[in-house]
Each structure stands twice: as structure tokens, then as C-alpha cells.
């Protein structure tokens, strides 16, 4: 076979002169070289495999890098700025609740907001000041509007032994203030215990109730919610006035001696209906008034230790990791979304292109084999 190969190589055909001249004429038409010098860089032909091996880690590094930078940048604010906004401190309010300072009147305007107001948790070890401070810090219901006042408090006790006493004291406080007990749930084990006490206290005694309940233990968390009822009551009363006016007009008509029996009957039936409606509205108004007369206190008495205290605000590194983690999750979610949506189309296009290319090559091979 070597001889064959050598013979083929040495007997390489040469182009005829006519063809040589024709190509030379073509070459003469060629314009001046477009590239005067070799290009500085030509993108080399890189196999797809190498693209994937290099590209995939590069993309991952980019994603992690962006997440880390985002985490560092967004965690830059000091922890203090992220603490819960402290409540307005209300001044000392007389028990009747009639004398309100301008600040308390401001509290009245704030109290119209239905969103709950959070108090900062008491630091461990500052018992007495925490109790008094927390009690003063909670907003108080104003006296010139009907409000639904509710407060929830999580109070940590010294130990299981004190749980029973504290529960009894909580109930007694409510009764002493003229209120009543709604529900009590009590459970204790050898080391831990919890009690849930719900009481209702006259709204004028909210301040005293807060002070006394604060004295049961360390307040770990406190939540106050004020819901305005005055608007609803005003609407009811306007409606009741309208109905009374209608009734008065009917009464005036009934006084007419010229009314026939049928008309009189109709008017009387109508008046009866209005009376019923008026009674119903009156009942609603009464219920709303009663609701506004009492504030609801939900107490959670617990003997749990460290876990019951509010976690300290996260440090900068924790915030950075947290933010970076959430950015990474977003990136993964978007990538998955794009892949999920685009992948079938890309796959189909790729298959179509590859199929067409393979078919073309097979056709060319058959053509050459037949020739």
C-alpha cells in the first residue's frame, strides 16, 4: 500500500494552463488586501464541551459574587436602625380618663389607626423599670370616642411554682377592677408551665390594669390593638333618626280623620315594621356600647427561659448572609423559570437544526457514493 500512496502523491495532477490564466485574471481583479496586518486576536474554535466546563463555573461564580456583594451592601445599616419603633410615652392619666394632655390627644388620633402597636421587649434584668415603663409605654384609649381596646401580654415568671399564684392574681386583678374573666387555660409540668388568661376590664381602668399585670413578672412581649367603634355607632344613630322621622310622619298621617280603613291599616303595618327595625338597631347600638365599655386583656404567663426572650437583632454578618441567601434563591428561581420556559423551544430548535444537518450530510454522502 505504501507504493500505492507514493505513486498517487508523486503523480499529483496539475491545473491546465488555460485554467491557470483564468484564475490569474480573477486574482488580478481582487481588491487591495482589506486587512493590512494580521488581526490581533482571532477567536479560536473551542469545543462545546470546553465552553460548558469553563462557562458553568464562571456563571456560578458570578451568581455567588453578585449575591455576596448585594448582601454586603444591603447589610451596611446599623442594627439599631432596624429596631422596633418605640411607642409614644403617654403621660400620667387620671383614672377617669377625662384630663388628656396634648400628647395623649395625639395618641387619640393615633388610636384611630386599626393596626396593632408593638412595644419593644423588656431587657433581661431590668424588671422594675421594664414593668413600669412598659405599662406607661402602651397607648391608652381616649375617652371621647368609642373604642374597642385589646391588649395581649406575654409575661415570664420566675418558675413553675409561681405560675399558679400569678394566674390567680391575674383573675383577681380583673375582678377588683370591676371586670370579669372570659377564659383561663392552665398547664404545667415539672420545669415549665404556661397559662392563658383572658379577662375584660372597664376601659377606664386600662392604665391600672396594665400597671398591675406588669407586676406579675417580666414582660417579654406586648401587643395593643385599638379599633374605633364610634363611626359605626354614629351611622347606627343616623339611621335610627331617619326611622324615627319616618315614624313621626306616619303618626301625623294617622291623625287624619279622613283616612279610610285600608289606608290606615297599611300605615299601621308600616309603622310596626319601622318599630321592629328601630328595636334591632337599638340592640346593635347597645351591644357596641357594651363592647366599648370593656377592654380585653389576653395574658400569656410562662415560665420558659431563654427561648421566651426576644432574639437579639442579627449582626452584620448574619444580615449579609441572609440577604445574600435571599438573592441566591431569587437567582435560582429566575434561572429555573427561564430554563423551564425556554428549554423546550431551545431543545426543539436544536433538534431541528441537528436533524437537518444530519440529513443533508447523509444526502451528500449518498450522492458521492452513487457518483
Amino acid at each position: 500500500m505504501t507504493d500505492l500512496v507514493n505513486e498517487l502523491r508523486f503523480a499529483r495532477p496539475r491545473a491546465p494552463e488555460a485554467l491557470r490564466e483564468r484564475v490569474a485574471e480573477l486574482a488580478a481583479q481582487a481588491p487591495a488586501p482589506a486587512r493590512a496586518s494580521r488581526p490581533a486576536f482571532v477567536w479560536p474554535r473551542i469545543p462545546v464541551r470546553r465552553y460548558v466546563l469553563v462557562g458553568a463555573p464562571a456563571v456560578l461564580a458570578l451568581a455567588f459574587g453578585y449575591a455576596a456583594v448585594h448582601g454586603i451592601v444591603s447589610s451596611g445599616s446599623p442594627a439599631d436602625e432596624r429596631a422596633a419603633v418605640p411607642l409614644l410615652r403617654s403621660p400620667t392619666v387620671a383614672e377617669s380618663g377625662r384630663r388628656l394632655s396634648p400628647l395623649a390627644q395625639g395618641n387619640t388620633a393615633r388610636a384611630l389607626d386599626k393596626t396593632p402597636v408593638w412595644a419593644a421587649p423588656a431587657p433581661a434584668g431590668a424588671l422594675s423599670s421594664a414593668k413600669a415603663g412598659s405599662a406607661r409605654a402602651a397607648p391608652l384609649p381616649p375617652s371621647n370616642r368609642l373604642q374597642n381596646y385589646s391588649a395581649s401580654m406575654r409575661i415570664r415568671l420566675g418558675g413553675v411554682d409561681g405560675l399558679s399564684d400569678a394566674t390567680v392574681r391575674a383573675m383577681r386583678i380583673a375582678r377588683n377592677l370591676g371586670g370579669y374573666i372570659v377564659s383561663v387555660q392552665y398547664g404545667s409540668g415539672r420545669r415549665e408551665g404556661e397559662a392563658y388568661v383572658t379577662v375584660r376590664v372597664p376601659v377606664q381602668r386600662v392604665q391600672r390594669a396594665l400597671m398591675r399585670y406588669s407586676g406579675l413578672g417580666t414582660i417579654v412581649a406586648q401587643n395593643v390593638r385599638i379599633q374605633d367603634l364610634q363611626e359605626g355607632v354614629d351611622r347606627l344613630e343616623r339611621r335610627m333618626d331617619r326611622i324615627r322621622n319616618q315614624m313621626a310622619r306616619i303618626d301625623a298621617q294617622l291623625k287624619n280623620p279622613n283616612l279610610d280603613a285600608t289606608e290606615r291599616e297599611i300605615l299601621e303595618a308600616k309603622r310596626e315594621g319601622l318599630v321592629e327595625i328601630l328595636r334591632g338597631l337599638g340592640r346593635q347600638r347597645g351591644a357596641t356600647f357594651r363592647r366599648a365599655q370593656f377592654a380585653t386583656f389576653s395574658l400569656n404567663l410562662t415560665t420558659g427561659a431563654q427561648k421566651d426572650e426576644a432574639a437579639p437583632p442579627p449582626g452584620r454578618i448574619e444580615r449579609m448572609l441572609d440577604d445574600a441567601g435571599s438573592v441566591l434563591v431569587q437567582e435560582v428561581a429566575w434561572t429555573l423559570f427561564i430554563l423551564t420556559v425556554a428549554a423546550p423551544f431551545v431543545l426543539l430548535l436544536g433538534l431541528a437544526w441537528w436533524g437537518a444537518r444530519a440529513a443533508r450530510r447523509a444526502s451528500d454522502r449518498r450522492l458521492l457514493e452513487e457518483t
Partner: protein
Amino acid sequence: MATPWTAEREASGEELTFAAAAERHLDDVYAYLLYLTGDRELAGDLTGETFERALRRWRRFEPGRGSARTWLCQLARSSALDHFRSERRRRRREEAAGGLEREKAHVVFGEGLSAELEAALRRLSAAEREVIALRVVLDLEVEPAARLLGISKTACTTRLSRALGKLERLVKGDDGD
């Protein structure tokens, strides 16, 4: 490692222009097309057509990606395949119309080839002659040859081995002749 372009540049000592590439590789393209078509006249026509195409596309040629010779052979192959396709359509029309088949002209694949070898080459298919032309006559490396043919390097080597084996058998007269 020097790229083919660098090697050509070093060899010529000058920048590769179209004229230089045409002069240097005219015989290569012609030889390839002769082996592919088995027809001198057709090989000549297709060679001219190839260089016309090359002139139009010369700006697209990037030396870093491969040698000018490989690029020109790719254009030549494309021209030849276009011709074969149109010939096939024409033959089918003629056969359908009951036309006569043309006689193939006597081919000389190379000055100095023995008569047995010439006859054996004529009996190979265009695909078999093509791989022999690229790997043996033009002495292309397996990678550019495989890329030009659109097959893997392994397939290219196998195809060459089979083509040379068949050629040898035909030359020796062992193919049932």
C-alpha cells in the same frame, strides 16, 4: 505552535493575499476536484467557479481558523456537490423522457499513474476518491480533512483505510475482475 497561516506567511515571507493563495493552491483545488468528479473538463470548470466564490468571500476568510487550502477545498466541495445535485435532477428528467446517457470522458487522474491504477481509481466512487485526494494526494491532516468531510476523525481514518484497501484490491485485480 505555528498556525497554518503563520506557516504560510513564514514560507512566503509575505502577507497572504488572494492572489498568493490562488497561485499557491490552484493545483491542490484542481487535483481535489479532479479526483472528486473524475472529469477533467468539469474539474476545470468547478475550479474556476471555486475561485470566483473565494474571491467574493475572501474577506470572510480567517487565517486563525484554518489554512487557506482547507478553506478553498471546502468551497470546491460545495461547488461539486451543487453540480452533482443538479446533474442528478437532470439525469432523472432525461431518464423519465427516455433520453440517452452521456458517455464519460476518459480521465487521467495524474500524469505518471499506471494504467491499472488509473482504471482502479475510475472504479472507485466519488466519496472514496475524495478521501484519497484529501489525505493522500493533498496530504491534509486528519483533523481538517474530517472537518471538511463533516465526519469524525475516526470515521475519516476508517473511510481512507477502506478506500485504499479497495483501490489496492482493484489494482491487483482481486475484486472479481
